[in-house]
């Protein structure tokens, strides 16, 4: 029985959830003594006001596309990968090692080499939790959280010892000039569009868009994707159909970890051009909100990632102008996760009832 039309499920429910999250956020801003409408204005202007700001917004969005896709791929196999943060840290390590110790002659080769290293390292960090889930039944959520907490001390150790550059800061040396990825202004300049070069958006954005296409094709156009979705819908049914749970869990988690790791193309290779300690800045966790909001579909994730990019960059302006801490973005992120994820039924059930009631009237 079709309870409500598809558009209501895909558009109406998420939009209503967002409206609820926005209302609560506005109440919070009101409670700390600011006008929510003014705050919204500052955020939008700060995120989209000029092309340098847009560049920052797109830079953050690129991070969130990678981590959002990572969460989504795992989620289709009913694996809740909270480890994107740790996988992105370790992916950064992979990218940094590849760029520091291999003298790539050109940035295109560095992009391939560093990108592959980032993906492999990220996937490796997801591999142990995936194996333990598949073979020993250890809960993936707990193990991936544990691996997040192991990634940080590991990097802390490496960046303060073996791969540290000179000086006080826990960071690697900068990568060679020849490996720097072109920024967005250079890319757009090549096709005759002028764009500020004062922002961090870079070639990684294009890789992120390609990753969206890749995930869409993988999940909806391949046998593996079909098996993954079947497994995610019903493990027992999938087993009867001859789908091997171990294979699906391992492959989906490896791809998920690889995507999270590939975030390093943006933040490590594209922006910092070296590895610093807090390189990921919570993007792995924002990926959870992005995937939930985007309903685990690449198009939804792209939209959600840009929205969170606006929030993140706008939040920086908000803290500069109104002295509202950047953590306000974390609050909004939490509310989005709460309403689109945990309280989904609260929003969905009344709408379903409405559609059923009106549907009956229409049938009579």
């Amino acid at each position, binding site marked *: 029985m079709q309870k409500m039309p598809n558009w209501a499920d895909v558009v109406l429910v998420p939009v209503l959830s967002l409206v609820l999250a926005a209302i609560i956020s506005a109440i*919070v801003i009101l*409670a*700390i*003594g600011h006008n929510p409408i003014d705050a919204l204005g500052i955020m939008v202007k700060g995120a989209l006001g000029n092309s340098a700001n847009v560049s920052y917004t797109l830079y953050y969005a690129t991070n969130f596309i990678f981590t959002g896709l990572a969460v989504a791929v795992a989620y289709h196999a009913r694996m*809740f990968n*909270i480890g994107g943060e740790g996988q992105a840290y370790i992916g950064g390590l992979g990218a940094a090692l590849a760029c520091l110790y291999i003298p790539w002659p050109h940035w295109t080769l560095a992009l391939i080499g560093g990108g592959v290293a980032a993906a492999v390292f990220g996937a490796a960090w997801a591999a*142990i939790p995936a194996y*333990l889930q598949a073979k*020993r*039944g*250890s*809960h993936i*959520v*707990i*193990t991936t*959280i*544990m*691996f997040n*907490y*192991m990634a*940080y*001390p*590991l990097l*802390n*150790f490496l960046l303060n*010892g073996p791969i540290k550059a000179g000086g006080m800061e826990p960071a690697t040396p900068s990568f060679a000039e020849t490996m720097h990825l072109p920024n967005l202004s250079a890319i757009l300049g090549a096709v005759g569009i002028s764009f500020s070069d004062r922002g961090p958006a870079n070639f990684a954005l294009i890789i992120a868009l390609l990753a969206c296409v890749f995930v869409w094709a993988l999940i909806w156009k391949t046998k593996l994707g079909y098996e993954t979705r079947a497994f995610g819908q019903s493990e027992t049914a999938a087993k009867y159909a001859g789908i091997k749970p171990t294979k699906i869990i391992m492959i989906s988690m490896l791809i998920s970890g690889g995507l999270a790791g590939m975030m390093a193309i943006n933040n490590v290779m594209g922006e910092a051009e070296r590895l610093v300690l807090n390189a990921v800045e919570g993007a792995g*966790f924002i990926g*959870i909100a992005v995937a*939930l909001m985007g309903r685990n579909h690449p198009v939804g994730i792209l939209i959600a990632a840009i929205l969170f990019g606006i929030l993140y960059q706008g939040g920086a302006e908000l803290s500069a102008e109104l*002295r*509202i*801490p950047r*953590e*306000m*973005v*974390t*609050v*909004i*992120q*939490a*509310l989005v*996760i*709460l309403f689109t*994820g*945990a*309280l*989904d*039924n*609260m929003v969905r*059930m009344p709408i379903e009832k409405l559609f059923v009631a009106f549907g009956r009237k229409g049938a009579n």
Partner: protein
Amino acid sequence: MDLLAFFDIAVLDGTVRLGVPLLLACLAGLYSERAGIFDIGLEGKMLIAAFLAAGVSFTTGSVWLGLIAGVMASVLLSLLHGLASITFRGNQLISGVAINFFASGITVVAAQAWFGEGGRTPSLSGAARFESIQFPGALTRIRDIAKADLPMKVYSELLSGHTIIVYLCILIVPFVWWTLYRTRFGLRLRAVGENPGAVDTAGISVYRMRYSAVIICGVLCGLAGAYLSTGLQAGFVREMTAGRGYIALAALIFAKWRPWQALGATMLFGYLQALAIRPDILERAIGIRVQTQVLDALPYVLTVIVLAGFVGKAIPPRAGGEAYVKER
């Protein structure tokens, strides 16, 4: 090598101080998960309680009012978790994640609006803090303790000088054990986490049992958080829980969801934390320098090893994580 250094009194004292919040949070999780509600939001509930306890203590000058405020905030988040995972049958893990982020953000935003000191509360002193209780005849000056003989050291540093929450904690483990295994409430609680259908058939409300468990969880997390900001330290700083909620969760699995084992696991993890802030003692004990990062990572590594089933199998309550739909 001086293996006796492992039993350094200062480290053992630190173990108790750092183990207590882990123990409270771990027992909080125990009630909730034994009733079939997974709770990865322990961290967030502790954090919001730590903040509100410190904020209200500072404003009113009474640590007890602060404690009540902190516990209430934690219980409110627990009820939100209950609403999402019991009433609306949402994903309990996602709800927990949301609660953690919410607490992480709102504490800093509110602290900035309230005190304007960059997301922290002012330092607490006097009645706005849990004072340490000195036993009669205990030495208080570090110099005196260093010179004293062993029984006096143990008495003065390890036994004396903790806050009231620590001493209450001595009673809490037998109490939890008793409620869980020797009362009707405990039997029903465990049953609701294993087979809610059977409990429902017996005419007991699954929803009410689960909500009670979630509220108890909130109270205990609130105590843990309030202890952090008003007992262990003097004031709230951002992210002051520093992953303790997750370590408590790890301890819960390590303990296989049982109260006495939870005491052992949390004290072990507390010990590792205490050792991590005294690398000199570890060096004296094993003769080589160990990176503190190894100690930082150790609780998580141990948990993964336990989860992997190498130290006996950790089997969670059977109905854990699943919403109960009442039959009609």
